[in-house]
């Protein structure tokens, strides 16, 4: 059996006495589509921050494929194929979509340190960026400066930037956060149309979306993995229902 695309071993993190991650062991097979769910404050975003290196764990290990990446800096993890998007738009407000995605492509191709050649001379990098934008239906808006893009388009640009790094594993932190329900389908359709080799983990609150797009669900509660399984198993689990209805009184 081949190594999982991404896995963690006994991952733990606390801020003072507040435990935000306890003994987290997850394992994403190559090409899987995992959903990460749980009540507010369960530590979902924290887990993404730990795996991408934006927070460093107190204990435990993170593996990308077979490589231990626990000690690597965020940008080095990205270069090895682990990308993420942000729940709150974390874009380049003053760049247009084409410039932003071209920048990400240039970084991946190792040409972003070149200061003697015009960007426009890097035809392949620009075309690659443009293709990513077309794939996410951002082609018509790509010359508009990011801060003036409609919110839903900005959410798509979040994904476009991550895709430009050519990830093997993509972690999506509430990709449709703040988008009206009738538009959130568009974003998940775009996500669903991504290549089957790509391993996905996404955080999402809308259970319809989760059951529709995930092949496997991890339930996080109070910083620990509460349970995990197929959508059918999770749907039938009385414990999960309790957590979501709040009878366990978790926040």
């Amino acid at each position, binding site marked *: 059996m081949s190594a999982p695309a991404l896995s963690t071993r006994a991952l733990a993190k606390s801020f003072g006495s507040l435990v935000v991650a306890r003994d987290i062991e997850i394992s994403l097979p190559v090409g899987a589509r995992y959903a990460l769910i749980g009540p507010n404050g369960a530590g979902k975003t924290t887990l993404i921050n730990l795996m991408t290196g934006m927070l460093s764990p107190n204990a435990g290990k993170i593996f990308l494929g077979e490589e231990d990446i626990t000690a690597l800096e965020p940008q080095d993890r990205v*270069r090895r194929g682990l990308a993420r998007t942000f729940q709150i738009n974390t*874009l380049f407000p003053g*760049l247009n979509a084409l*410039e932003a995605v071209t920048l990400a492509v240039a970084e991946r191709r190792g040409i972003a340190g070149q200061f003697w050649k*015009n960007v*426009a001379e890097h035809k392949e990098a620009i075309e690659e960026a443009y293709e990513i934008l077309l794939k996410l239906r951002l082609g018509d808006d790509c*010359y508009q400066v990011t801060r003036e893009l409609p919110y839903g388009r900005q959410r798509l640009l979040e994904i476009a930037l991550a895709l430009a790094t050519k990830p093997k594993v993509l972690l999506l932190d509430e990709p449709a956060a703040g988008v009206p329900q009738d538009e959130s389908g568009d974003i998940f359709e775009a996500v669903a149309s991504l290549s089957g080799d790509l391993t996905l983990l996404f955080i999402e609150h809308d259970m319809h979306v989760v059951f529709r797009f995930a092949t496997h669900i991890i339930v996080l509660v109070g910083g620990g993995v509460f349970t995990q399984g197929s959508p059918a198993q999770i749907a039938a689990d009385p414990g999960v229902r309790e957590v979501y209805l709040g009878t366990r009184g978790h926040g």
Partner: protein
Amino acid sequence: MALAENTMTPQRYLQRLSRWRPIEIAFWLATLLPFVLLPNYLSLASQIAIAALFALSLDLILGYAGIVSLGHAAFFGVGAYTAGLLSAKLGWGEPLTGLLAAAVVAGAVGYATSFIIARFRHLARIMLTLGFGLLLAELANSAGWLTGGVDGLQGIHTWPLLGVFKFDLYGYVAYAYSLAVLFILFLGARRLINSPFGLALRGIRENAVRMPAIGASSRVHLQMIYTIAAAIAGIAGALLAETTETVSLDSLGFERSAEIVVMLVLGGAGRLYGGLIGAILFMVARDQFSGIQPQYWYFWIGILLIIVVIFLPNGMLGGAAKIYERWRKR
């Protein structure tokens, strides 16, 4: 306009962003006017060109990479003393090699300090630039045997430019020289800004948090631009030493660091011409005001600065661009 943009290939669009505009060509042609119209002000024009080059170097780190520096004069001063000492102590007054030496030494100092600068952010980083600036100024002050201390460095003799053009009293050669160096380095900076590296710098300025998430090492980028900007500031300092044949302590003092920030903010940071316009404005205003009220002239600069920051947050050029946009949309 919008329609044309939609049918254009992305590559053509990016090419168009970096092409020369008529107003740029007009600007550079206008820099030649002092030779014929204001022959009595060529020394001032030379000083303006030097300040413009210094402001351009600050713009690369402040306007593009978002590094606010209150100690940028350190590199200007290091360049000035390098070229000055080369002539005063070693008897080598050849101007072009003097510039080169200044660029190398100032660049090296910039590179050495960049390791610390790139590691910190916000207020801590500003204070570090200030700290390094103060440190160097006091070093130059205490090393009076070498720098001449408060009396300034005497005994600089600059050889004729290219072995032919002697530096004259009226400043013809000085202005031609300063202007040519400014123009060549401006071309370099323009190229840099339109390169993938320039795009990465804007990325750091726009959102430093996102950069690592697209696989970018901001630290490496910041160290590189800090070094480049230090070298250019060093060249500006060397130009001043060579054309005035003297170097004083205030060439690396805090006041000069603050002044250059003011010039850049007045003109408009993050626009290649911001530092140039700011330098012209500031230096001409100083020349005019200090004739009337020499001791109070900062009062007027203070008022101007307050007005610009409140009403034109992107400087004079930013304001002009806004007015132009509004006029075009009509």
